[in-house]
Every structure is written in C-alpha cells, then in structure tokens.
C-alpha cells in the first residue's frame, strides 16, 4: 500500500471520527431519556444551546485556560444543555405536556434564544472563530504500532476516544447497574416500578437531565471541532440524526455508538466526497440524503411493529 493511499485512509478514519463524535454523545443522551420513557425530540435544540454556550465560553476564556479551554467548554455546553432539558422534564413529567410538542418547542426556542444572545453579546448575527479548538491528537504509545498506529492513532481526534469510552460506560450503566435497571423498568412499566418502590418521577428526571448533558456536550464538540464558531446554521440536523442513530442502535448505547459512527462516515463522505475517486462521481444529493433515507429503510425493514421502551411517550400519573 502506497503512502498516499495510507494517508487518505487515515484521514477518512479521522474525519469519520470527527463527524461521529457529536452524534455519539447526543445519541447516548437520547438513549438515557427514552430508556426512562421520555421521548426527546428536543435533542437538536439542546445541541444548539450546547454549541452556543461552548463557543461563548471558549471565546471568553481562551486566554485564561489555553489548550484546556475546549475541554472545559464541553462541560459548560453540557451544563447548559442540561438546564434546557429541565424545561422538557418539568413539562413532560409533571405538567403532562405532549412529549413531541415539548421537544418541538425546545427546537424552536433554542436557535432563537441563542442568536438573540449572540446579538446581545457581540452585536452581530454570528460569533467569531474560536482560537482554541480540539485540533488533532497523537495517542501516546499506540501511534507507534506499525500499520494500525498511523491509521488510527497518529493524527486523530481526542474527543472521539472520550465518546467511545462514554458509550462503553453508558452501556455498563444501563445494563449492569441498579440505576440502569430502574431506569429501564420505569420506561417499560412505570406502574410496576412504582409498586416496587422506585421513584418513577426521579428516574425520569435523571434520564432527561442526562440526555440534556450529553446532548449539550454533543453540540459543544461539534462547534469546537467542525464549525469553530456559532451561527444559526451551525447545528443543522445533527440532533435528529442522533435520534435516528439511537433508534438504529435499538436503544442500546453500543448500538447507538455504532450507528452514530456510520452516520458520521456518511456525513463526512458527502462533504469530502468531491476529492475522492469513485465517490466524486456520485451526485452529492445521494450522499447527503443517505443517512436519512437509510433510517427510514432500516425502520421499515427491521423494526416495523417492535418499538423502543414500552411506556415511551406516555405521561405517568401517579395514582394516590
């Protein structure tokens, strides 16, 4: 294999990871929310606020925290995403709002609020480019492995590895811990869970807040690796794709991660496809539509009737 081909493949892998990372985080968030029975169509809006707040933090504190800025900004984005998700939690869990309506409100609210604040803060419709981004990372040690090293670990994306780690942790939490068991039982059969003394509302809150935190991180990663600034078009559909990844992955964190990696690959192809042989001859419209069309096809072929958690989308009303 020539050095050129090697570097092309390495760059495709890296870019796939870069585009997948936000989707992985957000899809994991969606999984927690839906496992607890709350549909979260608002992930897109949550990503918007995560992206916005991380960019603001990054621009403000880049000189203070230096290279650590983007990492701290992730936490800020996650926290702001979580704040926004509180709205969804209160509306759907306590106030019996329709989950889809509440989520849609979040999607309407977030971009408007974010741009409003950008105009208030900076006096223009979009922010400046951030200076401190995640950039590329060389995995110490692993990059020395022949063949695999240069492909996977030589010039790669650090947040991607964090995302993969998070997926593994999320899988462990949902399937192997008491918390996960309770969360799932609330999503499947809240009445029974309540009878067993599980705090149904508490678990649902936990699910939605975790989804807000991870969705916010997803938006923050996107802003600080791919767009580098915040504008109205920064987040355009990634939240919805993450939802699709979650469904693709059958509400299993590892499945969701796999699907997110695939969607990231597809998104990346539609962007860099022009410079690749064979791919460049495919009209862009097919590459761009592919993730969405595939979601529909997979839903139709493999799911049909079988849906996610049984009590999903239903408001649980505790009877006294």
């Amino acid at each position, binding site marked *: 294999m020539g050095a050129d081909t090697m570097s092309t493949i390495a760059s495709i892998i890296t870019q796939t990871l870069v585009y997948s990372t936000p989707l992985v985080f957000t899809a994991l968030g969606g999984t927690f929310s839906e496992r607890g029975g709350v549909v979260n*169509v608002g992930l897109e809006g949550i990503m918007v606020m995560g992206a916005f707040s991380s960019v603001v933090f990054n621009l403000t504190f880049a000189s203070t925290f230096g290279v650590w800025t983007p990492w701290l900004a992730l936490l800020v984005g996650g926290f702001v995403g979580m704040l926004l998700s509180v*709205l969804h939690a209160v*509306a759907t869990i306590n*106030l*019996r*709002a*329709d989950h*889809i*309506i*509440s989520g*849609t*409100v979040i*999607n*309407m*609210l977030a*971009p*408007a*609020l974010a*741009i*409003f604040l950008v*105009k*208030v803060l900076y006096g223009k419709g979009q922010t400046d480019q951030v200076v401190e981004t995640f950039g590329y990372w060389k995995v110490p040690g692993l990059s020395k492995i022949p063949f695999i090293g240069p492909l996977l670990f030589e010039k790669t994306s650090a947040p991607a590895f964090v995302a993969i780690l998070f997926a593994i942790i999320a899988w462990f939490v949902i399937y192997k811990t008491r918390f996960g068991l309770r969360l799932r039982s609330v999503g499947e059969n809240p009445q029974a869970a309540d009878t067993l003394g599980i705090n149904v509302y508490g678990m649902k809150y936990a699910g939605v807040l975790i989804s807000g935190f991870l969705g916010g991180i997803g938006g923050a990663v996107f802003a600080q690796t791919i767009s580098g600034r915040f504008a*109205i*078009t920064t987040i*355009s*559909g990634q939240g*919805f794709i993450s*939802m*699709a990844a979650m*469904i693709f992955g059958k509400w299993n964190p590892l499945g969701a991660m796999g699907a997110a990696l695939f969607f990231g690959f597809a998104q990346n192809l539609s962007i860099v496809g022009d410079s690749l042989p064979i791919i460049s001859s495919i*009209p*862009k*419209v097919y590459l*761009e*539509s592919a993730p*969405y*069309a595939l*979601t*529909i096809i997979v*839903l*139709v072929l493999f*799911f*049909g*009737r079988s*849906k996610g958690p049984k009590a999903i989308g239903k408001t649980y009303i505790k009877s006294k």
Partner: protein
Amino acid sequence: MFRFKFSKMNGILVPILSVVMGFILGAIIMMIFGYNPILGYKAMLDTAFQSPKSIGEIFVTAGPLIFTALGFSVASAAGFFNIGLPGQALAGWIASVWVGLAIGESVPKPIALTIVIVVGVLAGALAAAIPGILRAYNETSEVIVTIMMNYILLYVSTHLVNNVIPEQFISTKGTTKMVGANASLRTEFLSSISGGSRLNLGIFFALICLVLVWFLMKKTTLGYEITSVGLNPLASKYAGMNSNRIIVLSMVISGALAGMGGVVYGLGTFGNFFIQSSSLSIGFDGMAVSLLGGGTSIGILLSALLFSILKLGGQGMPLRAGVPTELVDVIIASIIFFVGISYLIKFILKKIEDKNKEKKVTQVSKVEGGKS
C-alpha cells in the same frame, strides 16, 4: 357575582392566557438585557401596522401559515404528529414554481393557476403519503419518518435547482427566475389596494380552505371517521372502519394542505424558488399556529394573523428599539410551551373556581345559618 365557570371556557382561556404569558416572558427577557419592553412592543405594533402595505403583508404572511396549520390539524385529528410539514410545503413550493416557469407565459391564467395548484398540492400529498402508508401498513413511527423526509426533500430540492431544472429557468445559481404573470397568485388589483404589497390570492384560498376543512371534519363521514380513529383506533376498527385507509387519507389531506401552503409561499409571496439551508419556517410555524388555534378553523385564522403580526412587527424591533428580531421567535416558542403545559393553566383555573365556589358555599351557609 361570579357566575360563569372558568373550566367551561378552557378552549378560549388557555390560548389567550398562553399568549399573555408569552408576551410577559418576552418583556421580562427584554428587561433582563436592558431593553425597554414598552418601546419594544410599540416598535413591533408600529412596524406591523405602519401602512396599507404593511397590513397587506400581514395577510401575505398569514396565507401559507393557515394552510400548514390546517394540514397539521387534520393529521392531529387522526392522532398523528405530522412534523413533515416543512418538507411537504417545500415539495409543493418547488413543484409549483417549476411547472409555473414552464407554462406561466403561454397558458391562460385560469388554466395555468389550476395546473400549478394541482401540481403543488399533489407534490405535498405525495410527500405525506409515504409516512402515512408506512404508518398504516408497517406501524413505522410517522414522527421519525417525517423528520427524515424533511431532510431528504431539502437536499433533493437543492439538487433539483442546481442540476435538474433547465438552465433557461434559472436566474442565478440556486435561484429560479420569477414565474410568468399567468402562473402567479399576485394580481394588479390586490397589489394596488394594499399600497404595493405582495398581497395575493393566497389568503382568499386560505379562507375558503378554512371553511372547507371545517366542513370536511364536522359534516362529512370521512371527517367523522378521521376523528374517531384519532380518538380510539381500536374501537373504530371494531365499528367497521378501515383504519388503514383513513390513516393514509388523513396524512394525504394533511400533506396536500401543506403543499398548498408551499404553492402560496412560492407563487404568491416570492414568485420563484431559491435553495434553502434549513427546514422551511412556514412548516414549524404552521404547527405552532395550529396548536395555539386549538385545531379549530377560527382559532387557526386568529393565531395565523397574530403570528404574522409578530413576525412582521418583529422585523422593526432592532431598528426602532434595538431589540434583536429573534425575540419574536422566543415569544412564539414560549406561547406554544404554555399551550403545551395547558394542564397547569387548567389546574390553576380550576383552583380559582373551587375557591370561589367554597366562598359561595360558606356565604350561603352563613346566610342560612342566620335565618334559622
């Protein structure tokens, strides 16, 4: 003495209170960021009602919104959440403009208009039929399918403008030429009575459709069947209705209305098509209009006008009061949020009512006690 019952008026009180709370929240946000809310709202109203032209534009904006809102309400009546309105409206928009460009100069106006409308409506109906059929025969979530369809249609429309529509119809990259006068919904007369606004036939078609949809839902068997499937699909099946057929039909009607929204948007508001970077706002705004209007015809009309005033008036806020336009969308979103949590509003109204009743009871018992 309080005679009327609050809870009997929920249908009117919930939207009104939601609007009021939305405006209050908007005022609070303005105050937090150091703007004067009175100036802000004054700027909004002054801009919306500054001239016959701006009033004409209110109806221009309301037309497509009424269609997408009607589309949303028909699907909702059958129990479906049609988030695909932006894509369906987009399909109607591009299809009608494309055909309008082809026939706008050569075919007489009545025939040309009929053709472009039929094409746009069919395009919207087709875009909605896919999720409808998948839902009916495969039980695939219409929410997910319509969201995905929105993006597919968005990219397809860009592809069509950039690569498929004949060169002679394109003005600059990503933008088509204006359709000929015969395929346009605008007329000299409407423009002249409204101070040169883009006022067009769209709003009149919208009014007709408000009545038609009301008639369909309340006075026809199909409307009854749609509503009963929405209320209880299983019971409707036992009662002998073909629920699959009704599911598909309700989505098709919903998409046809959204498609018509796209026609009005394209041939009335703009007169051409230009590529979009994100989902059409008339889709999501139409959803909001329908939710605020409670799905009724009169409610949709009023809330579409309110939204148009907000949207147009909001454009004057930066210049006249320094408040960013986006505040309007924050207000709209929060109004819908309050409609969404109407349980809370109803709960509070009920509490007030019960308190009044209690007062009355204690007063009555006091009087009676005095008598004995």
